[in-house]
């Protein structure tokens, strides 16, 4: 009888016993503690700013008491009404929204078309110089978008804006506003920048495709046109979709290009509109615009999630997915290379050469020998108002460079380590809720374009709150904002690295008797050294190219290279500004090469994330 009772009791232990047992198990799993700490940390770092900006759009901001006839801090629909429905809503929101969507749509369409064609040429044909193009075509993606924008203005700038004229203007050719500024150049540049992304993503999909599927169709007598449209295209459709959505989302948040090329003709996008609102101290309106940007981001992501779910249905395990068979192009072999070559020329050679030439020319567009000088790089005692030395001899430049390294470097390092810890916590944490919360919250900044995120940070950390002092104007706010904005990438690569590693190496160490600390230092971190290095360097590269976070959060004492160059541009020191941009491009390129050295395969996979 007693044994029976005992058995019954054993079968269903009461809640208290089970909880105590779970605790006894969890006590030996530090991932739980790490997970909880990280969850709280990110709730404050990511969730709080996002929420605070959403709240800001509903409460009266300081200075708006008279307009709203309400006290500061009380609830109001004023900003919503003003931004969405008032007479100036057309200027504040609807026209910028239309412009933003038009730019994003145009960029997606053209970069997809060109990208798919080039991806096919590089991966599936015997185009001349295939291997070389595989790398060269990716380069435009490594350059900051506004490198192209600056090169564009250097050539096409017209009298609409003051300052030094563009090359064509000085050669006597008047460029119309529609060529020099606005929709056309913005889309043109974004297409140049994002086409490599399409080449990477679609190219990977093409390479992973199991050749046996095509062979089966061929055996059944399908001509190559049918194979392309009814076998290959449907199979790489998920890759196409994800590339398109990625580009769309990035374009929504793009700030620097419309800032340089849109502002002169009052061609606003949501990002520049947000900046303008912040600049004119309309924080409430800025909050509403930020909210709109976030909503677009959320919608894009939901579509992405949904399509990924659908895509999973026809994921096939292609073991021998090697595509060694190449399409013979015949007479088209050289013209095909010409096409790819043209892209490299327009996307890499032309802008970089333009920028470089512009830094060694006194007057733009005059191609005679006495007009060339290295003064803007290394000259001293120049007859200018400020900046009397060449850029490499200017202390501010080195200060900005140093700031860049410190701010971007430390934030990349922090986000890389945090990413690995998030990966560890997500996979090991006994409480499922904590894991999925971490996974989702670290992904949240992806939905929030940099400019909106910066605005959110400004709204939260500009004043002292609780134990946190006012951070505006300190490098700390930049570092924190950068860490938060890099978390989607960092946590995803951390989770991926830890998933790939699996639990077993650590379990084997536990069996061998290793405590948590030795497991971390002797097993996990040494094995993950490569991914960790990449996880630090990639955010570093994208960090030094970034503009939107800095332009809102940086002040002259925390100038980084990007804001320094934009400031120079504002004061019409075009040559110096372009020289700084070239230095940024150089650092970005060196960093990318370093990643490739470290991780071997790095580039294509890394950027795709």
């Amino acid at each position, binding site marked *: 009888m007693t044994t029976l009772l005992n058995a019954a009791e054993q079968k269903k232990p009461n809640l208290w016993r089970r909880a105590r047992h779970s605790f006894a198990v969890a006590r030996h799993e530090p991932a739980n503690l790490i997970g909880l700490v990280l969850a709280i940390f990110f709730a404050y770092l990511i969730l709080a700013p996002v929420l605070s900006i959403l709240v800001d759009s509903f409460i009266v901001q300081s200075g708006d008491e008279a307009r709203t006839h309400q006290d500061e801090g009380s609830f109001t629909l004023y900003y919503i009404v003003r931004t969405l429905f008032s007479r100036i809503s057309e200027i504040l929101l609807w026209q910028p929204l239309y412009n933003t969507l038009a730019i994003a749509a145009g960029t997606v369409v053209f970069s997809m078309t060109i990208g798919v064609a080039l991806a096919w040429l590089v991966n599936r044909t015997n185009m001349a110089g295939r291997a070389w193009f595989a790398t060269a075509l990716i380069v435009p993606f490594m350059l900051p978008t506004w490198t192209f924008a600056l090169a564009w203005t250097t050539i096409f700038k017209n009298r609409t804006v003051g300052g030094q004229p563009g090359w064509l203007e000085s050669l006597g050719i008047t460029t119309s506003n529609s060529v020099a500024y606005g929709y056309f150049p913005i889309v043109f540049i974004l297409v140049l920048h994002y086409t490599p992304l399409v080449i990477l993503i679609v190219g990977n999909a093409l390479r992973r495709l199991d050749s046996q599927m095509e062979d089966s169709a061929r055996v059944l007598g399908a001509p190559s046109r049918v194979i392309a449209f009814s076998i290959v295209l449907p199979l790489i459709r998920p890759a196409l979709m994800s590339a398109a959505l990625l580009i769309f989302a990035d374009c929504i948040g793009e700030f620097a290009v419309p800032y340089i090329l849109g502002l002169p003709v009052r061609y606003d996008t949501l990002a520049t509109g947000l900046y303008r609102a912040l600049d004119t101290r309309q924080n409430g309106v800025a909050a509403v615009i930020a909210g709109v940007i976030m909503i677009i981001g959320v919608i894009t992501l939901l579509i992405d999630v949904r399509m990924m779910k659908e895509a999973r249905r026809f994921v096939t395990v292609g073991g021998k997915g090697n595509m060694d068979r190449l399409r013979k192009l015949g007479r088209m072999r050289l013209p095909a290379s010409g096409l790819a070559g043209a892209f490299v020329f327009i996307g890499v050679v032309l802008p970089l050469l333009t920028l470089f030439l512009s830094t060694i020319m006194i007057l733009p567009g005059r191609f005679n020998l006495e007009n060339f000088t290295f003064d803007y790089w290394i000259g001293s005692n120049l007859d200018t108002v400020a900046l009397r030395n060449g850029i490499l001899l200017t202390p501010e430049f080195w200060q900005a460079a140093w700031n860049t390294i410190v701010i971007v470097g430390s934030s990349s390092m922090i986000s890389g380590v945090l990413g690995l810890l998030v990966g560890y916590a997500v996979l090991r944490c006994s409480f499922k809720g904590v894991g999925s919360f971490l996974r989702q919250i670290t992904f949240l900044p992806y939905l929030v374009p940099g400019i909106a995120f910066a605005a959110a940070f400004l709204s939260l950390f500009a004043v002292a709150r609780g134990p946190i002092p006012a951070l505006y104007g300190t490098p700390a706010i930049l570092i924190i904002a950068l860490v938060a904005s890099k978390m989607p990438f960092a946590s995803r690569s951390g989770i991926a690295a830890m998933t790939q590693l699996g639990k077993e190496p650590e379990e084997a160490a*536990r069996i061998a008797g*290793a405590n948590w600390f*030795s497991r971390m230092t002797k097993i996990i971190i040494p094995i993950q050294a490569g991914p960790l290095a990449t996880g630090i360097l990639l955010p570093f590269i994208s960090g030094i190219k970034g503009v939107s976070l800095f332009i809102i959060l940086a002040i002259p004492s925390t100038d980084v290279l990007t804001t320094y160059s934009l400031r120079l541009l504002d004061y019409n020191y075009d040559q110096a500004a372009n020289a700084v941009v070239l230095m940024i491009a150089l650092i970005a390129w060196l960093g990318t090469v370093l990643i490739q050295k470290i991780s071997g395969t790095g580039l294509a996979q890394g950027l795709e994330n």
Partner: protein
Amino acid sequence: MPTITLTNLTKRYDGNTEPSVDQVSLTVEDGEFMCLLGPSGCGKTTILRMIAGIEHSTSGEIAVDNLVVDSVHQSCFIPPEQRRIGLVFQNYALWPHMTVERNVDFGLRLQNVPAQERKARCLDVMSKLRILEYADRYPSQLSGGQQQRVALARMLAVNPGVLLLDEPLSNLDATLRLEMRAELRRLHQTFGTTIIFVSHDQWEAMTLANTIAVMNKGQLQQIGTPDEIYAEPSNRFVAEFIGNPKINIVDLKAATTEHVSLANHIQSRISANEFTSVCAIRPEEIVLNNTATPHTLPMIIENIMPTGGSWVIELSFGEDRLFHSTQSRPAWREGEPVNVLLPMQSLHFFDHNGKRLVLPESDLDYSHLLLRSNPTHTNQPYAKQA
């Protein structure tokens, strides 16, 4: 050396309605070489991982040498790093950033064993497992069999009382399997360790283990020596799971008066029993005969499949199909008629729940026992006896 006791051990994963391990109780004696055998997903690896401490139980108890290491009832859980139980993972889980030697001496370093002794023990284990020459290589430079020996050495170096192996032979090719099988047997003898291993392969279980615990759907089906489990399966699952080719199953409930069938034939030879639901006979126990006797059935040879040294013969009786296996070359060709005897003492009976039934002697028709004078089931005609 420890004894491992599982009492009503249950593991339920979140979201699964059925428990992965359901009320399993068993004792592994000191020095035993036990196999947990079952189809994939039956919970055998989960049991192994719970014994090691990588998973924890939902209810029930695990005790090692009377010391409770995991019990919800007593709110007690000892983590794997304190249990001193060795576990060799199915895919070995060698640390890719360490050489073979570092992999092997990792556990000893953690125990702060003096360098000299550590070196000596490492060399000893590595030479016993014949991986000494690879000491400075990295795991990725080794073949599967070598990797497995490193994984074994890594565990044996710290001399655990119990060694757990997850599918120890499954990742090896045919030659290596034989070699490793001998190796494991040797290890069990030299180190005297208690070994529990998990397998879905009956060959692996039969050839290695002293004791086999058959599992299905989280539940323990039968424990016994390989012979016991083969000869007296305690239920239909065990009968069908063990044996290659598979045991022949005749559904007695399908017996009808309309046409002749195997079920009818067997029913006629046992007195009717409402519990008896299924009859089974091992392929090698079927006897083929040229001449008809009162208990033989006329069948047709449908198919003869040589399997190298033995033959599998498919027989048909009306709609019914039987498989017979034999070590001697069949004397018939495909399509020829043959007389088939199903010896009564070879028939297994199971009830409608699949549980083994022992029919009372009186229920069986023993007239065929005349045949017992011929113990080996050959293809020789039985005409004389008739």
